């Protein structure tokens, strides 16, 4: 078989996998959207279209309150996690001392620990230290701990493959290290930073167990509200919330794309035709 044929075959295979994965990803999302307008959840396809579940969700103060808390918390956590995580990604990616691998493992540990264990441990710790009454701060710290590994992993990954010759060129041309950092390095790893920010927000926004143990009546993140909601029945209000959130995310993406262009949104374009 000529290498050209192999190329074509593997190209076709990869395209099929890509299409399959796309459908796999979208299927449950589409399903959730359909369920959110279905007046009779046990039937499929839906016999009619109804806004009932949206009204139910929007009219409830506990859902609205939960959404507000989660958004606020998520934004704060993202800011904190991206800052702290990027700071430590640099030495992790660039210094080769004996402890790097161990340190990486330590920073990854919040992900490896079962959420229920983290939740109980953190709750006990905050009670022990005496700060438990400051619920928002406590949730902020806990969520940042959970979000950090994502940011560190992604940014370190981008930095390791990073072509340092660009930095060297900039330094050689007389720029200071700070200028190099701000104008060369950070912009080029922006995709990594963005990905880290998305992960951090998601880690905080969707966290159930740790939030449940650290929440209180005053500060109740949305997933805690939702979890107590789907204990007895699978309520389509959940589908309504998801659809709203997904619509919101999509709109934000489209808006950003209008302003910035897709290239900047995803990263450096160009390159060869994909296989």
């Amino acid at each position, binding site marked *: 078989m000529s290498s050209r044929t*192999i*190329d074509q075959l593997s190209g076709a295979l990869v395209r099929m996998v890509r299409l*399959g994965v796309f459908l796999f*990803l*979208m299927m*449950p*999302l589409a*399903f*959730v959207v359909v*369920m959110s307008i279905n007046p009779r959840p046990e039937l499929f396809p839906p016999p009619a279209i109804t806004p009932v579940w949206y009204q139910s969700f929007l009219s409830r103060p506990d859902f609205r309150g939960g959404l507000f808390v989660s958004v606020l918390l998520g934004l704060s956590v993202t800011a904190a996690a991206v800052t702290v995580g990027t*700071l*430590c990604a*640099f*030495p992790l990616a*660039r*210094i*080769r001392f004996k402890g790097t*691998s161990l340190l*990486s*493992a*330590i*920073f990854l540990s919040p992900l*490896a*620990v*079962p*959420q*229920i264990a983290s939740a*109980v*441990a*953190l709750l006990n710790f905050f009670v022990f230290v005496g700060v438990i009454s400051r619920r928002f701060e406590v949730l902020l710290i806990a969520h940042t*701990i959970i979000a950090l590994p*994502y940011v560190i*992993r*992604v940014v370190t990954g*981008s*930095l*390791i493959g990073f072509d340092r010759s660009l930095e060297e060129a900039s*330094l050689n041309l007389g720029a200071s*290290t*700070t200028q190099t950092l701000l104008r060369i*390095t950070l912009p*080029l790893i922006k*995709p990594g930073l963005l*990905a880290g920010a*998305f992960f951090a927000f998601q880690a905080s*926004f969707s966290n*159930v167990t740790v939030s449940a143990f650290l929440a209180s009546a005053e500060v109740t993140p949305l*997933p805690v509200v*939702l979890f107590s909601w*789907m204990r007895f029945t699978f309520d389509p209000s959940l589908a309504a*919330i998801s659809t709203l959130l997904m619509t919101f995310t*999509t709109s934000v*993406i489209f808006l950003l*794309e209008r302003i910035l262009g*897709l290239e900047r949104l*995803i*990263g*450096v374009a160009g*390159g060869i035709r*994909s296989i």
Partner: protein
Amino acid sequence: MEGTRSDDNRVNLKQLFLLFPSIVYVVLIFQLALALMLVTAFFRYQFPHIVDQFTLENFQRFFSSSLYLGTLYVTFKIAATTSLLSLLLGYPVAYALARSQSRLERAVLFVAVLISLFLGIIERIYAWVLLLQDTGIVNRLLATLGLGPVRLMYNEVGIIIASTHFLLSYAIFTLMGSIQSVSPSLEEAALGLGASRVRMFMDVTLPLTLPGILSCVLLTFSLGMSAFVIPMLMGGGLVWMLSNMIYDRVVFTGNIPFASAIALILLFVSIVSTQLVTMLVTKKIKVG
């Protein structure tokens, strides 16, 4: 701030300083909190109090029972499978996101992956349950095609499907970040020298994105090992992962010592596996 490249092997004090905030969060708060709790694994539990008596009985209980050892095995198996699937399925998509010249393709894929990321875990499970159960959409479709119902729920298959769906977005973004920092001119050079696409991928792209692949695998594996909500709601009480066992002990009997013992063992296995994989791949990166 970073020093110059020739400082690679010298430990620069300024750079260590950058690590400080992360260390505060992860080590001083998290690990300390965790250690304080996990140390109870060495104490006896007499409902509902923890007794001040050093003992190894929690560990003995774990290792002497095929139930717990079996669950450890199942947990590892599911985590490894999910991680591998996410990598294999995610790489092509990540590559397209990084390199495709079709604006439409990249936009569509990006939106799909991002929205999937933001779908909450509970709604995700809700959708998969309705899709995969015996009277669910998938089986109904199969029925119209004349094929028998396939048991996709209350077993490992359903858990792997839902977990992979959950982890794919993470895998794709992690890989994408890494593929992007590899300069396309390297790939172009290889093609310019006459290599086929497959050759170019194997010899240029793949080795250079190994750090990203490693990140992806470590991330998805760690998440997979501590998976909890998915096996709880889709396992039908027939498939458990270690996190479910920890949850049961904490929530229903308050047996924190035994729960801590299980958590310690889970952590140990998780860390050892990831360290092994990291060592293997880092060796490859250095050699290649």
